[in-house]
């Protein structure tokens, strides 16, 4: 496993400054708390596992497509924006940014989720797989092959999300019939209406007994 370059060279290298700032924030909030609440509260606050201040980036480690990353991220950055903007893994698409379309579907510890509605800092220690991590070298994943064979797309914008969702749908055991596939793929909207061909592609992979 290779180590990805650190995302923000200006911050993590200077660990001293970073930690000093964090200590300051902790201290100042502790002082505030001291003024307003009984001492018990301040004591419990010391058990906080992780803390990042308002304008502070915080260290996050995760594995993305088999590579370990040590990153520095602002708390408000979503997993989707981390992938696209910071890591330039632009295969994962932003459609609605509100959980309504499925274009941003990735796997976290093997489960499909919408990466637009989770914070990157919440993924500490997790294993992420994006569309870039599905193929084995030059060999496409069987679901990718089937999407090509069955014309499972037109413009292709929803396709990375559809494929990530389809792989999970088969693994979950939710691809038993066209009806079941339609229900469990309903979180992926296709503006081009390639639904019939997507169902055909998933059905073929499922019936072909491929390991997905």
């Amino acid at each position, binding site marked *: 496993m290779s180590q990805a370059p650190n995302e923000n060279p200006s911050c993590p290298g200077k660990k001293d400054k970073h930690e000093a700032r964090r200590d300051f924030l902790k201290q100042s909030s502790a002082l505030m708390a001291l003024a307003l609440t009984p001492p018990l*509260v301040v004591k419990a606050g010391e*058990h906080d596992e992780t803390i990042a201040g*308002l304008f502070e980036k915080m260290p996050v480690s995760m594995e993305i497509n088999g590579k370990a990353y040590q990153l520095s991220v*602002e708390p408000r950055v979503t997993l989707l924006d981390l992938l696209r903007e910071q890591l330039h893994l632009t295969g994962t698409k932003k459609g609605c940014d*509100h*959980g309504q379309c499925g274009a941003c579907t990735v796997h976290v510890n093997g489960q499909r989720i919408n990466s637009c509605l989770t914070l990157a800092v*919440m993924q500490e220690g997790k294993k992420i797989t994006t569309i870039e991590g599905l193929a084995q070298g030059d060999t496409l994943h069987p679901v990718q092959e089937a999407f090509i064979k069955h014309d499972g797309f037109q413009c292709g914008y929803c396709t990375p999300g559809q494929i990530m969702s389809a792989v999970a749908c088969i693994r979950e055991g939710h691809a038993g019939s066209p009806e079941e596939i339609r229900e469990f793929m*309903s979180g992926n909207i296709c503006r081009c209406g390639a639904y019939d061909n997507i169902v055909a592609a998933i059905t073929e992979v499922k019936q072909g007994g491929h390991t997905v």
Partner: protein
Amino acid sequence: MNQFSYVRPASQQAAIDAITRDSSARFIAGGTNLLDLMKNGVLAPEKLVDINRLPLKNITLNNNILHIGALTLNSEVAAHPLVKTHHPLLSQVLLAGASQQLRNMATTGGNMMQRTRCSYFYDITMPCNKRTPGSGCSAIGGINRMHAIFGASDQCIAVHPSDMCIALVALDATVLVAGPKGNRRIPFGEFHRLPGNTPDKDNNLGKGELITGIEIPHSPFTQNVYYLKVRDRASYAFALVSVAAALDISNNTIRGARLAMGGVAHKPWRLHEAEKTLIGKSPTADNFRIAATVATQSARTYQHNAFKVPMAQNSIVTALQKAAAV
């Protein structure tokens, strides 16, 4: 999204303290509702307290009482053998909500706390008493097709959007809460509120209180249950009207009945009076129709949602028929 500080407490007490000492702090669980609202500027907490490291992810059965930890995912609850065996209605309602991706993120506690989908609540350029108390309600004289037919006030006519909560109110669940003053238990039917003069308050959870889990008592409703969700498309949409029906039938006689509706009120809407009409009766369409008429007696409609009354009646009859036929 606004900027905020972030803490990930290692203990329940630290999480409660972190919220208690900061008036604009919020817990974050799955994030699927909170981040959505923050992106729209509806909420702008200065601190997020990530509760995902707390040990609140479990499903256990003790003395026939099912316990579900607050961080258990909607997909995990829906698929769990104990849930499917003892409370199949809960599994059904969860699978009718959102998408598999969202269910893999959404938690039991977060689902109960989700805000209304009233479009004016989401649109920060419009008056809304729930978002900004005293600013007015844009829905009462506006587009109110999705809005309440039961229990609304002249301050707010929004509905609670959860499917999960409809089964929990029908099954007489209890909400387990931990807070700065210790632990308490809230009967599910008393957890959510009607809007009254304080539509900004969705429920009775106090400041600093954390939902730790829910309990569902033993119930006879393991067989004849059905959740009917009527919506604008076949899947992945909020309910216009939904009905959870559970029957305990023996010798062609209804011994017990539970009925609750979604999409019709500011809280999960239990139909106690309609349930009573069914006890001791045979499971026939005529008896179901009587229950449906009783259920909708107190309905009050607005300009665009009068269709919900006949839809509610027909949905009650259909859901009861489906439940009886299982």
